């Protein structure tokens, strides 16, 4: 099995640096900051109690592509969010299921940094659906922070960047896993064994973790093939860690010092133990990179 590089090409800059060999100001004019909202009027929509929104679109109007690096949202109550990427020909998930907005979207001050940048252009768009899990109306605003590469017809370099990004996104893209079956409800001081199943068509490079819960808990993540804990050495002795020490939040996800690869179809065992002494609803998000299994076969 070849070892893939740790750093995945995620820049719209040329390999030898922004502006190398060419006036920098020209490059600066082509690459600009950009912010994306959803296509609802005024980027604002309200979902009634326990209701589900329409599937909304996030895309650029002309130019592009853009690279999405951060996601933030405001909502007036708790909600679950599901996201897909649609390029007209195919639609792929960005989450394996609906994830809690408080685990995967930051706020206006500190956006949730995606584990890897995501390319969006006129043809390739993000689809998003919000499910209100509160008993009140819920008003949403979304904001995606990006850098935009204006694709100028007479600019072969810009077209090259665009092509490179397009190729790359067919090989890797950011992905977030939640626990199979959604949120886990722990009884007071209860223990729960759960799984996260990696998709069959993609390997997964785990890069960061975040959570939203109603109380504190202990967590242990175990490779179901080897029995090895991500927290401890080999063997059956796993000492779980506390959520406040090892799992970050939506605004400060816990970033692993080195990404950990899980193969396609593999299962992770996630053991959760409540330490709040009360019923505890836990939403987890495992952020990382999906790597096309097909690409790996070609490399092999």
């Amino acid at each position: 099995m070849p070892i893939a590089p740790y750093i995945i090409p995620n820049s719209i800059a040329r390999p030898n640096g922004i502006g190398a060999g060419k006036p920098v100001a020209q490059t600066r004019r082509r690459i600009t900051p950009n912010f994306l909202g959803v296509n609802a009027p005024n980027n604002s929509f309200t979902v009634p109690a326990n209701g589900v929104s329409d599937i909304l679109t996030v895309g650029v109007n002309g130019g592009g592509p853009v690279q999405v690096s951060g996601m933030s949202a405001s909502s007036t109550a708790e909600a679950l969010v599901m996201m897909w990427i649609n390029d007209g020909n195919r639609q792929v998930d960005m989450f394996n299921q609906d994830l809690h907005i408080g685990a995967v979207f930051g706020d206006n001050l500190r956006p949730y940094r995606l584990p890897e940048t995501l390319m969006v252009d006129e043809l390739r768009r993000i689809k998003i659906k919000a499910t209100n899990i509160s008993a009140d109306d819920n008003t949403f605003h979304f904001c995606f922070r990006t850098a935009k590469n204006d694709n100028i017809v007479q600019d072969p370099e810009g077209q090259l960047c665009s092509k490179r990004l397009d190729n790359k996104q067919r090989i890797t893209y950011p992905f977030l896993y939640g626990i199979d079956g959604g949120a886990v409800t722990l009884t007071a001081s209860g223990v729960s064994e759960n799984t996260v199943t990696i998709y069959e068509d993609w390997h997964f490079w785990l890069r960061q973790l975040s959570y939203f819960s109603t109380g504190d808990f202990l967590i242990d993540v175990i490779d179901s093939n080897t029995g090895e804990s991500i927290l401890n050495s080999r063997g059956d002795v796993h000492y779980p860690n506390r959520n406040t020490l090892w799992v970050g939040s939506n605004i400060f996800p816990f970033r692993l010092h080195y990404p950990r690869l899980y193969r396609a179809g593999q299962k992770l065992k996630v053991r959760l133990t409540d330490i709040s002494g009360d019923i505890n609803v836990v939403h987890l998000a495992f952020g990382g990179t999906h790597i096309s299994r097909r690409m790996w076969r070609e490399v092999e």
Partner: protein
Amino acid sequence: MIGVQELITKVGDRWIPNLSSKAVIPYSATFDIQNPLPVHINAVGVPTPPYPITWPRLNLEGGMEAGELVFEDATDTTALADWNVLFTDSNRRYMNFPCHVRTICGTAQLPGIIRQPLWGPGSQRLETTLIKNAGAAVDVRMYFNGLAYSMRPGDQYKWVRERRNKAIWAANFCHPYWLTIDQNVELGASITENNFDIKIGENLELFSVAAVSDFDFAYEVSEPTLGQTIMNGKIAASAGIGDARYPTIFDTPLLLPVGSRLRITLDNLAASRNRVFITFQGRKLLVPLKDVPPSIWDIDTLYPPPSSWRIQKEGRKS
């Protein structure tokens, strides 16, 4: 940023302090006043005399690199401070109009970062004009934090001298700049499509945006002369714009050449009157774009480079 290797030197098996670290010290600069802080800002409509700040000249070769702004408002509390600040000196203006203090200054734990450090030559004065935009008179404190140089002409502190010379050299080509709307904006209840245009008189490069307001609002930033927009629609402030402590850092700097125009469109999302203050932070380029030296464009020279720019750099390695 200063690396450890610049503060200690290995001699044989031992590490000893590098004496050159005496030639540069952390420094906080505040107003030139006879009495201890705070200083007084008069109520709305009553002008307050400008307070000068004199950059330190601790030795013959002095000066200061200011990288942070912090403030405290004893009367209104820091979170509700309502006054604007304007920085000028004898030949430069660092803002187009006075900026709201909470869009440029932070607090000790979360200071307002000046991403292009402000070079202040020793003994030179920076005029600071403080203006209340609402409410009664207040007493305030404000500091620039950064590095002060303390060298004599014969000193052989190589890296300190190089760093100081670089700061002086860079100040010939650019200086920090804050860009804001040229008036106090108060949106009527549920009013939409308020356009505010800012003419760009010199080349600017913007790094971040910050805002404070009474209630939530939606905003869109565009450049109408080129038909360029940096948003696909209006973004709600509650999801998409921070304040001085956590500004919304652009994923890549926004270059605005001379002659362009920045249009900010605001919608009031509240059912009551809403005061909005928006400030862009960046730097002014003092020479034509073609004459800007390449190293000025190097984003790593900024203080500190935002994490998203580091991602771009990592990407280039592969």
